[in-house]
C-alpha cells in the first residue's frame, strides 16, 4: 500500500508538469487552431533561462523562475508576430510546417549557444519530505504547489479579466469575436505570450529535477499533444485533467504492469478515448 501512495505522489508531481505544458498548447490551439509543435522549445527555453540566471548570473531561484516567465513570454509573442501572423488566413498546413520549422530552429539555436551537453540546475530545495514511508523531494512539493497556483491564476485571468474573456470569445468563434470589436491579432499575441509563461513555469520548475539539453522539450511536447487530444482540443479543464490522468496512468501502469510499457499505455489511452469519444473528454459541443 505504501507503494501505491508513493506512486500516487510521484504521478501527481509529474502530472503537474504535464498539465502546465499541455495548457499552453491547448490555449494556442483554441485561439488560433494551430498545433504549435514549437511549444516544446518554449519549455526548453524556460529551463535554459532559469539555468543562465541561476548558474551564470548567480541570482536566487525565485528570480530565475520569474525571469524565465518574462523571457519566454516575449519569445512566445515574437513567435506569433514573426511566424504565425503572416500566415493568417492561409491553409493550416502552412502554420503546422512553420511550427515544426520554429521547433528545429530553436533546438538548433540552443545547440549552438549551449552545445549538446546536459546542464544541471541546482535547487535550494534539495531535502526530502517523508510521511509514513512515502518520500517526496521538496522540489517536487514546490512543483505541485506552483503548478496549482499557476492554474488558479490562469482560471482567474480567463474568467475574470477582459483579456481572458476575449481569449475565450475568440476560441469560441473567431469571426464573432471580430464582429463585437475584439482585436483578434492582439489577443493572439497575448495568448502566445501566456502559453510562453506556462511553458516557462513548467520548464524552470522541473529543470532542477531533470537535465537541461537542447532536445529536452521534444518528448514532453508529444505527451502534451496526447493530453490535449485526450482532454479535448482547446479545452482548458481538459488539459489539466488530461495531464494528471496521463501521468497517473503512466506511473500506475508502470508499477502494476511494467515500466517498459508505460509509454505504450499513454498512447493506448489516447486510442481508447478517440474511439469512445473522438472529440476528447472535455470538448465543448460545436
Amino acid at each position: 500500500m505504501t507503494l501505491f501512495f508513493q506512486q500516487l505522489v510521484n504521478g501527481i508531481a509529474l502530472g503537474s508538469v504535464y498539465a502546465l505544458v499541455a495548457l499552453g498548447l491547448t490555449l494556442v490551439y483554441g485561439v488560433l487552431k494551430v498545433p504549435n509543435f514549437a511549444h516544446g522549445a518554449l519549455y526548453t527555453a524556460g529551463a535554459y533561462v532559469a539555468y543562465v540566471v541561476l548558474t551564470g548570473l548567480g541570482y536566487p531561484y525565485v528570480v530565475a523562475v520569474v525571469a524565465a516567465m518574462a523571457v519566454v513570454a516575449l519569445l512566445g509573442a515574437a513567435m506569433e508576430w514573426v511566424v504565425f501572423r503572416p500566415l493568417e488566413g492561409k491553409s493550416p498546413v502552412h502554420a503546422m510546417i512553420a511550427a515544426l520549422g520554429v521547433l528545429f530552429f530553436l533546438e538548433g539555436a540552443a545547440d549552438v549557444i549551449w552545445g549538446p551537453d546536459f546542464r544541471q540546475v541546482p535547487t535550494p530545495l534539495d531535502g526530502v519530505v517523508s510521511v509514513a514511508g512515502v518520500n517526496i523531494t521538496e522540489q517536487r512539493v514546490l512543483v505541485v504547489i506552483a503548478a496549482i497556483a499557476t492554474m488558479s491564476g490562469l482560471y482567474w485571468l480567463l474568467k475574470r479579466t477582459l483579456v481572458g474573456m476575449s481569449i475565450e470569445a475568440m476560441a469560441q468563434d473567431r469571426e464573432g469575436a471580430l464582429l463585437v470589436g475584439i482585436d483578434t491579432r492582439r489577443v493572439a499575441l497575448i495568448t502566445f505570450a501566456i502559453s510562453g509563461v506556462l511553458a516557462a513555469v513548467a520548464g524552470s520548475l522541473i529543470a532542477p529535477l531533470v537535465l537541461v539539453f537542447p532536445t529536452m522539450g521534444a518528448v514532453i511536447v508529444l505527451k502534451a499533444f496526447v493530453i490535449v487530444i485526450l482532454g479535448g482540443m482547446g479545452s482548458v479543464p481538459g488539459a489539466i485533467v488530461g495531464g494528471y490522468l496521463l501521468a497517473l496512468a503512466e506511473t500506475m501502469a508502470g508499477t502494476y504492469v511494467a515500466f517498459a510499457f508505460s509509454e505504450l499505455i499513454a498512447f493506448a489511452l489516447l486510442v481508447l478515448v478517440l474511439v469512445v469519444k473522438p472529440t476528447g473528454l472535455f470538448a465543448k459541443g460545436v
Partner: protein
Amino acid sequence: MRSSVILRAPRLPAVAFLVGFSVWFVGCGEGGSASGADGVEVVPVGYIGPLSGGAAYYGRNVLRGIQMAADEIAEAGGFEVDGRRVRFEIVTADDRYLPYETATAARRLLQQRRPSVIFVPHAGGIRAVQEMNLNEPQFLLAAYSSEPSVLEAGNPLTVMLPPRFDGYQEPFVDAMMERFGPRLGLLPTTTAYGRAWTEHVTAEWRRQGGTVGGDHGVDYNTTTDFTGAVSRALADRPDVLFVGGPSQPTALVIRAAREQGFTGGFLVMDQAKFEEMLAIVPMAALEGSIGVYPQADYPTEGAPYFTERYYARFGADFQPPTSEVAITYQAVHLFAQAMQLAGTTTDPEAIRAAVGEAARVIPDELRIFEMSGVTGQGHLARAVWAAHILDGVFVPVEIPLPSGTVIQ
C-alpha cells in the same frame, strides 16, 4: 504580371545552386589524399556518427578524441609513410544515430573523399556498413562499440576498439553479490544495448546463485521523471540495483534511488561513466558502485600522459576525458602507426594487417592502454580495468579477456 513575378523569384537561388553543385561536383573527382600547403600529404579519415539530436553529446565526445589525435599529428609535422610526410584530415558526416543514415553518409563520404579509415560509433551503424567496406572502394571500419555482434560478422576489415561488454558481468556480479547480498533489482535503459546487457547480467547473477527481481527498466532518453520507476524497483527490496544508459540520466536514477532511501550498491552498465555522473551526484551517492574505470586516472602507465595533454589542449576546467575520447584518440595514433608499418595510406587490407604489430610497437608516450595486438576476429586486445568505489576511492578490478582468445 503577377505570374511573371512568381516565375522570376526562384531563378537566383536556382543559379546559385547550379554553380554550387558544379563546384562540388568538380571537387568530387579528386578523392583520396592530397597535398596540403605545407607540403605534408593530407589523408582523409572519416567519422560517421551522431552530431545532432539526442546522441550528439556522445558523438562529439567520440569525435573529440579522433580530432585531438589528428591535430597532434599535424602539429608534429605529420608522420612518415614510405618516404612521404603524411597527416590526417578528419571528414565528418552526421547520421543522427540512425543506421540507414550511416550507410547513406558512408556512400557520400567515399564518393567525395575516399577515406581509407572510417570511424562509426554505434553498433547499428557499424552493421549497416559492414559488407559495404569490402566492396570497392574498400575502407577499414574503426568500430567504436562494445557489442560482440560487431565481431560475429567476421568482417576482415573491421577493428573493434572498446572492450567487449560481455566481459564485465562475471567480475561485476562476483564483487557486488559478495559485498551487498543476493537480491538484484533491474532498472536499466531499454535500448537494444540495454536489453542485451540486462540479459547477460541476469543470467550471470542467477548463475552465481542470486535472485533477480522484475525488470523495471525505462528508456533513459525519453523518460522525464525516474521517481516512479525507482519506487517500483525499490519495492522489491534489492541489495544491488542494475542501472545504466547515458551517464547523466543514470546519475538521475541513482539520485532518485538515494532520495528514496536505497542504501545498497549500483552495478553500472559500461555506457555510463562515473566521471560524468560526478557532475550531477556526489561521490557519497555512488558509494559501493561498480562500473567503468574513470579515464583520467586509468591505472596504466600511459594514461596520465594522455590526461595531461587533454587538459593542456582543452583547458583545466573542461569536462573530464571519458573512455570514448581516449579510445578513439588511441585508435587514430594506432592507425598512423599501422600505416607507417604497412607503407601505405590507401590500402585498407595492408593497414588492417599491420594493426596488431602497431599495437605492440606504438611509442610509450602514445600508449594509453596496455595493448597486445588484435584478436582473430578483429578486436583490439588489451588489459581492461573496471572500478569499484569503496570508501570514496576507485579500486581497480581486472576484466579478463574471454578464454581461448587468440591474439595476432
